[in-house]
């Protein structure tokens, strides 16, 4: 009985400590995706970013307070860098069954309310978030186009202060984009920020 219990507990702990390995790393080729935008049309890296130098992929959502605090800054990033060849593409990876506020209908509403200037895609199967290794919202991936490939150049936070855009000292995403535009290596390629967990399907 006791051995059985120990075995169960051990098995359980193995599961509990299991972390999905992988996800994209800086330097990797980013996988393409084809996801439904809020206008009903499908958007993909290969199909919609042909003329771009790269893309700023942002995993975000409607409900998360951290994600909300960054909405205006994501719009500002898009406005500043779209014309320079690095448009933003936002992806909501959350399961609406777990987080009703993150439904497709609510994505359409949120985008309209905030006046998103970029596509806001629904990762319904969560395959893209899994492939990229996104863990929280907001979580950004800056990609640079080399030939037909999109190469990951930066993963992590937008900046170092979620609550006060004016108090930001380190604009990680902008620094990375400016370096890419100047043809220089990105100094800080990976950062972390507090955020909401992605609401994975059971």
């Amino acid at each position, binding site marked *: 009985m006791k051995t059985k219990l120990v075995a169960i*507990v051990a098995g*359980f*702990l193995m599961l*509990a*400590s299991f*972390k999905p390995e992988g996800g994209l790393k800086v330097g990797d080729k980013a996988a393409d995706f084809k996801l439904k935008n809020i206008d009903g049309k499908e958007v993909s890296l290969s199909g919609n970013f042909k003329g771009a130098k790269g893309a700023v992929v942002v995993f975000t959502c409607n409900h998360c*307070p951290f994600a909300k605090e960054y909405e205006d800054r994501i719009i500002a990033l898009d406005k500043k860098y779209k014309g320079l060849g690095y448009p933003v593409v936002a992806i909501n990876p959350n399961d609406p069954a777990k*987080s009703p506020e993150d439904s497709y209908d609510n994505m359409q509403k949120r985008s309209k309310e905030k006046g998103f200037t970029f596509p806001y895609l629904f990762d319904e199967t969560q395959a893209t978030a899994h492939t990229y290794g996104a*863990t*929280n919202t907001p979580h950004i991936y800056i990609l640079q186009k080399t030939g037909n490939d999109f190469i990951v150049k930066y993963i*992590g*936070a937008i900046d*170092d*202060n*979620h*609550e006060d855009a004016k108090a930001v*000292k*380190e604009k*990680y995403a902008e620094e990375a984009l400016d370096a890419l535009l100047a043809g220089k290596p990105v100094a800080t390629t990976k*950062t*972390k*920020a*507090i*955020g*909401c*967990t*992605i609401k994975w399907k059971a």
Partner: protein
Amino acid sequence: MLPQKAVTVVSLRDYQTRAIKNNDTLYVVNFWATWCKPCVQELPFFEAEQAKLKGQKVKFIYVSMNSPKEVAQVNSFINQNQYKADVLLLNAGNPNIWIDQIDSSWSGAIPATIMYKGGKTALFYEGEFTRNKLDSVIQKQIL
């Protein structure tokens, strides 16, 4: 009337002094925020464990990721829910620096839980616990 409980705003160093001690007590630290739904859902499990393990060498600390500007909000929340554990609010500056100093495997998503024993990290877990999962994880640490 019950005495009012208040959150203590701490630096990373204060936090470490309170949670990482070279003794035989297990420190169970949960990172949460008032607006984080899965966090708020799992806190009662931590309260239940604390009640169950009363008298044993286990200490529970909840570390709020709310902004230091939200102290009043956090105070009213913890009094409303009558949490018995100590509640801290971490005011440590750039998360890109302090997240790794707490645990390098932490992505920064909350809820997250870390357990310390004998001045060392005994377990780190990112994501929400079920009641049973939390119970078995703590049981294993205090065996």
